């Protein structure tokens, strides 16, 4: 794990178009039951333009940012040695179907802990109008060679 990665900012990702079926699929996977995740009429009645994503769907979009870090050869991170340490989301509004979202991903810090590296990351998620939708803060524990 390269300690000089701290502070690295990756370029904004290509837009992620949030689809209705993806929301339904994700909602089933996290055992969600609220009709606003499944039924467009119910979502409209609750005041939303389209199906509403479950709160942690944000990670799917954030993943596009994380993929940049994992693909970064200068980082030297092997996915099977990555454990999620903590996660926080700050929501400006829920993600809804039809949103086109881009991610600005940043490595906030890298510190050694035993044989592991603790990597703190920040991802800001913006809609097509450039308005911030959510921020995602994650700590990844990257295991050393064993």
């Amino acid at each position, binding site marked *: 794990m390269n300690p000089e990665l701290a502070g690295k900012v990756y370029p904004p990702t290509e837009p992620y178009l949030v689809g209705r079926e993806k929301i339904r699929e994700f909602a089933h996977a*996290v055992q969600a039951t609220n009709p606003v995740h499944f039924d467009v009429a119910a979502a409209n009645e609750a005041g939303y333009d389209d199906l*509403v*994503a479950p*709160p942690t769907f944000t990670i799917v979009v954030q993943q596009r940012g994380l993929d940049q870090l994992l693909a970064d050869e200068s980082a030297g991170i092997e996915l*099977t040695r990555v454990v999620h340490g903590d996660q*926080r989301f700050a929501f400006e509004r829920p993600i809804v179907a039809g949103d086109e979202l881009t991610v600005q991903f940043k490595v906030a810090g890298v510190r050694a802990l035993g044989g592991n590296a603790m990597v703190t990351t920040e991802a800001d998620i913006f809609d097509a109008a450039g308005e911030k939708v959510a921020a995602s803060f994650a700590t990844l524990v990257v295991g050393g060679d064993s």
Partner: protein
Amino acid sequence: MSFALSEGQVIAKYDAHFSRDSLVRYAGASGDFNAIHYRDDVAQQVGLPGVLAHGMLTMGTAIQPVVDFFGDPGRIVDYQVRFTRPVPVDTEAGADVHITATVAKDLGEGLWRIDLKVTLGEQTVLGKSQAIVRAA
């Protein structure tokens, strides 16, 4: 719609069952294809007892009883967890995770902190698991 809440009030409980199928479903839905969530051999190679649930599956499921109580996912304005212990998912028995959501603090202006206790057997698997909810 507003809610009558008081600190210490248990607002929801939910028992979630995860099978290996749940993990495959979550991998596909989320795009997280880390092999430690579906291959015992790969999990063991990196020193784990076997396949583990995605931390984000546990986090994503744990908030659902809160969403159900408040009736609108848009009321969740902040949500955080620490992944303190792994959730091993047995091929046959799966894993049963118990979730209890308790009102922790009135933050003012209609915002409340809801704490989640998430356990597997006697052990807590998510630490500092807190949501901030707009209740009014």
